[in-house]
């Protein structure tokens, strides 16, 4: 049993983080708790600290909105947290869609869909095009374009304020990831993930590789939702510096050779 906790320590922590944040939002609306009010688009922590989704703000700027200072401060706080420290951790530690797509991925594995399905080619760069398109459409239509269709918002807003037909959208994402493309939504299409990938290029929290320990079992690559970031595995020691890495920690859990660990990025000694 202790092995179970060790092998899934980050996964369990992530689920706790995702669900407890959702619960705090839910409780704010349902029971009037004042810990975390609002939702993932914008919220108020401890009745004083504003928080906001920087990508939503970017879309709103593009749409031509004049915004009040509260939300700007909130956006700056969140942006600084991820860009300087946590990287793309939003996607694996906060975003509720991650639970949906992870379970689709899990089912894929059990049902051996990989070996049977016809491959649909969808580039990993599609999301950056969607990101660009989001900003252009926000500008043209005068409304935050992704916020109007985002299944992420539909899910977290739905859990707090009522789902409506949002269930259908979330089901679509689940089916798409399950039957159509592996990691289809989070790894290929989602512009919010693309935004955090771009902002995470310089962040401090990193997965570190210790090459001499590596036995080239490739368990890490098998479990990673963004395989391309693990390009240094077995080749050289160092940080996983890709912005696409979500810091989910799955690679660290599956590594039985102590070749991977979380650490702070080494900016000073480049050889370290």
């Amino acid at each position, binding site marked *: 049993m202790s092995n179970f906790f060790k092998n899934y320590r980050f996964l369990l922590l992530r689920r706790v983080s995702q669900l407890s944040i959702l619960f705090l939002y839910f409780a*704010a*609306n349902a029971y*009037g708790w004042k810990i975390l*009010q*609002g*939702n993932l*688009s*914008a*919220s*108020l922590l401890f009745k004083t600290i*504003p928080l*906001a*989704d920087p990508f*939503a*703000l970017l879309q*709103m700027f593009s*749409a*031509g*909105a*004049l*915004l*009040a200072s*509260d*939300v700007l401060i*909130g956006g700056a706080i969140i942006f600084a947290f991820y860009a300087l420290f946590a990287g793309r951790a939003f996607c694996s530690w906060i975003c509720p869609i991650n639970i949906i797509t992870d379970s689709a991925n899990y089912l894929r594995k059990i049902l051996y869909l990989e070996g049977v399905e016809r491959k649909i080619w969808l580039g990993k760069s599609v999301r950056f*095009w*969607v990101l*660009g*398109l989001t900003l*252009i*459409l926000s500008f*043209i*239509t*005068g*409304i*935050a*374009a992704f*916020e*109007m*269709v985002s299944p992420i*918002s*539909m899910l977290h*807003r*739905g859990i*707090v*304020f*009522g*789902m*409506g*037909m*949002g269930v*259908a*959208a979330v089901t679509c994402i689940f089916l798409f990831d399950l039957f159509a493309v592996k990691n289809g939504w989070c790894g290929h299409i989602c512009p919010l993930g693309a935004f955090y990938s771009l902002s995470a290029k310089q962040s401090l929290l990193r997965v570190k590789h210790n090459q001499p320990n590596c036995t080239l079992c490739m368990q890490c690559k098998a479990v990673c939702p963004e395989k391309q970031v693990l390009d240094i595995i077995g080749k050289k020691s160092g940080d996983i510096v890709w912005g696409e890495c979500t810091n989910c920690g799955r690679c660290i859990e599956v590594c039985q050779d102590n070749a991977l660990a979380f650490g702070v990025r080494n900016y000073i000694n480049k050889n370290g």
Partner: protein
Amino acid sequence: MSNLNKKKIVISDRRKFISLMAQSIGLSALGGMIWSGYLQEAKASPLILRPPGALQEFDFLRACIKCGQCVEACPYDTLHLAKPGDNKPMGTPYFIPRQKPCYMCTDIPCVPACPTGALEADKVSSLKDGQKVLDIEKAKMGLAVVDEESCVAYWGIQCDACYRACPLLDEAITLEYKRNARTGKHAYLVPKVVSDICTGCGMCERACITKKAAIFVLPTALAKGDIADHYIKGWDKNDESRLDGVSSDVTTKTKRSELAPQDYLNSDKGIFDE
């Protein structure tokens, strides 16, 4: 043999790059067209009532981040966030007065809760002793309108439910007394909405006794017509003052007015022209 003679086509990296970009742009154009079509439709939802202090609908849709903090702040659970499938701009706050009207809290908790300024305190504030204070009576959430055909007061039945439900009693809705010629001995007491004062809270719509409310709140832009600037009420001093400084001897020059009236009336020039 012929294969060897064929000129070898070299696909350069540059060609590959340009083709890839062109492909992506093509796909983006198709996706963007469908997406923007949805956006344009989704935001064109005129029949929606916003919380007090909301910006004009067009600006409101830009500025609202859909966080629901106004909804949480509302002590009466009047406000909802539009769910997917509600046929309203998704995630934006609204209320349905017939179900639950705005109870016009004096501290307007929904407005300061807004982090983006989509609900603007200035729009529901007035000056008191040189200080800006929140004043819910300034709110313009919509405008109540009466369907005279289904309002029983217009049948001659005394009702005044909306009149009494109005939080701005005898200001936003007044009762107009008229003689009921049908019976010859009763009065009509018919509700009249004063559009300058009505906040659109919807208490009247909630109180209305008919099966479907005969008095109901519409977004102001929908409820009202628009008289052009050149109509002036001559009997209203304020309105009449718009004429101050306007010179009255404006002469219009047209082809006809080049000649004095008697000249062109007397001449037959142009009459028999085709």
